[in-house]
């Protein structure tokens, strides 16, 4: 802890000196920064709208658009957003990741796409977010409790992927995106077509991606204590592919807008072959290392289908919006059959599941929501409600969580008061009701049970029929004060989260981490109280933003490693059991940008988070996946070159501190220093501009571990040097 602190002090000092330096020159270098313009043909949303939103929202909001994603393109959406302070990911290899907002993830962060809450298998560390990053135009990230808008789960924050802007009238066009990556030999392409007459429009997209095993700067890794040699630095079997379809179509008139959204995201990706099962395993290296592009067992296949309609209409002073949606998430995990507990050593031929189908989850979600927004004097009031029904089936030869159905309903009122140009006040209340019904499950094989010196064979019950109901009342109050260049905000709010099936009823082996996970049917709904502050200063050539927060959970749900082992189904593995404890967390993010000249700027983005369990069996410990403090120093050069449009050149240097604040079974992670290089430009071609972005991630091929990676526990280093080239070629057929 001492060392981590001293590093952190170093950052603080660096920051302080930079601030003083910045102030010294702050008055002399005027530079007009025109707002960045984002466009889908002629639909233009200027950064002013984003600025305005920020100033009128009492929670901390970060908004990025597709050009930010293109410039910082990572293997998946969340990896492309990691440059934002407070936003990290839990990465599953090179093609998947899940959001980690201020240290919270899984079901404590929600993702909303086109107004619909994304429901996948987000409870599992190995399940990446099924979102096509090429189809994302604008993302808004709320760093703070947003349960009052979104209901259960939005405890840590929300990633809101906004609907695409509509094409302008009487156009037909599209674009082609091409991406190549050197590290995992990835090729990706995405083709977009859109069109609109006066009122009717469509916007469609097909994305494909294919990548090989990613490479790390080491030829041996230690999975727990087991040494695993790597062939040509390839992380065995981490290749994958993706195929996505999107279509949005509908009508947009003066008072009525109705849009249908359809999307299907399909991925197939391998898991590191040596670390899956009941223990670290030897694999057939000859078979695995023959090709770096094939996906062998173990691997996962995920299909996510979404269909929804959003209809909005104006009626007098009222703006109504209804949304109806359906989602299906179908996930399968394939792996060689490994018997454990009293499973037969040879897989029975008449089994209900294929031999290699380890797990299968099939989720159907129906949702409906409606809201009405209207103005009374200074009050802008939103009343809304939503109803969600979920049905989950399980399959495969192994058991972790039972099948379940879930029903949720919520009702909220939100009032935004515009006192005058400078002052905004916010108040919201919400009521939620939820019911989860879990189904009983019996083993498909018999186990030996000894009682009174008699040994019997029995089909053991792994989960029972269990119904739990929860209800919750959440609130939020906030204020904004914007005197000129300064803007201040404060928000105090509560959030809640219903325990999920995994936390209530899991009873099986986690094959990635070699542990036995046990649910706890007595869990209460998780509550959270959070205070958020925000301070922003924006001058012509200097901007500064600080966003501290403090957060308290009276009953955080936590997977506690016990000292016991399960000798039946768990095959002797360590037992992890769900418990609740008091948790206190605080932290802050800082961003500052300074323009030396019109074309040269420097930025610093820093983040710090501290979490501590205040009660329970891990009292004094932190929470799992706690990101260490980090600082990103960036230098941007945007010169005027006659034949190029908006060329840029940037260098980022990220220092990530040590993380010595750990909880079993985590390991301490050393500090790391990573450089990224990015440059690109738009090229004038006919009527449209082709944009090209080039990145060199991990410039010096540094070997380092990321504390919040899915593969951290088994000591897999992060990807080595990676050159990413991406190109966007828009075209317009008619106008």
């Amino acid at each position: 802890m001492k060392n981590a602190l001293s590093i952190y002090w170093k950052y603080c000092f660096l920051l302080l000196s930079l601030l003083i330096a910045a102030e010294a020159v702050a008055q002399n270098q005027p530079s007009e920064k025109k707002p960045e313009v984002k466009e889908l043909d002629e639909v233009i949303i200027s950064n002013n709208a984003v600025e305005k939103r920020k100033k009128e929202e009492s929670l901390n909001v970060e908004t990025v658009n597709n050009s930010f994603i293109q410039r910082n393109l990572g293997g998946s959406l969340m990896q492309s957003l990691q440059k934002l302070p407070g936003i990290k990911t839990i990465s599953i290899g090179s093609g998947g990741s899940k959001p980690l907002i201020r240290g919270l993830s899984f079901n404590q962060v929600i993702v909303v796409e086109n107004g619909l809450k994304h429901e996948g298998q987000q409870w599992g560390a190995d399940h990446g977010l099924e979102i096509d990053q090429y189809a994302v135009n604008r993302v808004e990230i709320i760093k703070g409790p947003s349960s009052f808008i979104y209901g259960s789960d939005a405890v840590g924050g929300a990633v809101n992927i906004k609907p695409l802007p509509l094409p302008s009238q009487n156009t037909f066009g599209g674009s082609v995106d091409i991406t190549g990556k050197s590290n995992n030999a990835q090729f990706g392409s995405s083709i977009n077509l859109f069109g609109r007459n006066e009122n009717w429009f469509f916007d469609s997209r097909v994305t494909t991606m294919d990548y090989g095993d990613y490479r790390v700067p080491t030829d041996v890794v230690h999975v727990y204590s087991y040494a695993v040699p790597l062939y040509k630095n390839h992380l065995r079997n981490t290749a994958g592919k993706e195929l996505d379809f999107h279509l949005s179509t509908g009508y947009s008139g003066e008072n009525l807008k109705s849009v249908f959204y359809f999307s299907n995201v399909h991925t197939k990706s391998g898991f590191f072959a040596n670390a899956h099962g009941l223990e670290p395993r030897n694999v057939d290296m000859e078979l695995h290392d023959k090709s770096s592009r094939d996906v062998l067992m173990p691997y996962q296949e995920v299909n996510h289908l979404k269909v929804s309609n959003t209809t909005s209409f104006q009626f007098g002073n009222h703006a109504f919006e209804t949304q109806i949606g359906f989602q299906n998430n179908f996930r399968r995990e394939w792996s060689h059959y490994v018997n454990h507990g009293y499973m037969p050593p040879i897989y029975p031929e008449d089994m209900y599941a294929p031999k290699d189908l380890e797990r299968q989850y099939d989720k159907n979600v129906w949702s409906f929501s409606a809201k009405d927004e209207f103005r009374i004097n200074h009050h802008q009031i939103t009343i809304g409600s939503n109803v969600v029904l979920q049905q989950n089936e399980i399959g495969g030869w192994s058991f972790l969580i039972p099948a379940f159905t879930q029903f949720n309903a919520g009702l909220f009122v939100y009032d935004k008061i515009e006192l005058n140009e400078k002052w905004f006040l916010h108040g919201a209340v919400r009521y939620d009701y939820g019911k989860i019904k879990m189904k009983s499950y019996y083993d498909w094989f018999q186990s030996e049970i000894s009682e009174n010196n008699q040994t019997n064979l029995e089909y053991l019950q792994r989960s029972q029929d269990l119904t739990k109901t929860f209800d919750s009342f959440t609130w939020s109050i906030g204020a904004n004060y914007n005197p000129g260049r300064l803007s201040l905000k404060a928000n105090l709010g509560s959030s809640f989260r219903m325990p999920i099936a995994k936390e209530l009823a899991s009873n099986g082996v986690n094959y990635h981490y070699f542990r036995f996970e046990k649910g706890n049917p007595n869990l209460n709904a998780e509550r959270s109280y959070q205070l958020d502050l925000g301070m922003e200063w924006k001058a012509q050539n200097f901007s500064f933003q600080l966003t501290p927060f403090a957060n308290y959970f009276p009953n955080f749900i936590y997977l506690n490693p016990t000292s016991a082992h399960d000798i039946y189904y768990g095959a002797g593995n360590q037992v992890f059991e769900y418990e609740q404890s008091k948790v206190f967390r605080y932290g802050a993010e800082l961003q500052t940008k300074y323009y030396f000249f019109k074309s040269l700027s420097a930025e610093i983005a820093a983040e710090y988070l501290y979490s501590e369990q205040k009660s329970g069996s891990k009292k004094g410990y932190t929470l799992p996946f706690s990101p260490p403090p980090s600082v990103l120093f960036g230098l941007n050069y945007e010169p005027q070159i006659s034949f190029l449009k908006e060329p840029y050149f940037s260098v980022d240097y990220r220092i990530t501190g040590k993380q010595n604040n750990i909880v079993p079974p985590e390991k301490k992670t050393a500090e790391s220093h990573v450089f990224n290089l990015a440059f690109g430009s738009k090229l004038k071609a006919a009527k449209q501009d082709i944009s090209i972005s080039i990145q060199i991630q991990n410039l010096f091929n540094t070997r380092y571990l990321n504390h919040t990676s899915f593969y951290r526990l088994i000591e897999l280093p992060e990807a080595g040097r990676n050159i990413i080239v991406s190109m966007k070629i828009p075209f317009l057929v008619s106008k």
Partner: protein
Amino acid sequence: MKKLKFLIGVFTLAFLTSCSSDNAEIDTEYPVIDVSSSNAFPIQCSTIERGQTFTFKAVFNDNVALGSYSLDIHHNFDHHTHSTEVTSCEMEAVKSPVKPMLFINNYTIPDGVKNYEATAQITIPADVDPGDYHFMIRLTDKEGWQTLKGLSIKIL
């Protein structure tokens, strides 16, 4: 500008104070499995005969308090497992199991003990498949830190 300086000062201070944290003493050390003593058994490449009972012996250590341990003997006829040890043993050819031995048991360690000499009697049934097996020791401490040791053994 004065106002700006003042505000930057205040917020930097606020940021700096957030750097401090309390330093509650927590245990972050793994327990240790020691099979280096002369009477430890089995060790890497040990052989055990069918129809006999042998005594498992190892020494466990922890900085605060030991938790429990489990022992697991399973076949390695498919060469799926490798050991945590540096030296490797001679292996038989790959074969299919007919009646492989499977042994899994957990054992308690008295509360609050830092050093413990573990012993356990294990009987190898006479009718199991002989061949390469894997002997796995999983040791936890009170806080839930776990250490694994995987040994390659042979049943004759």
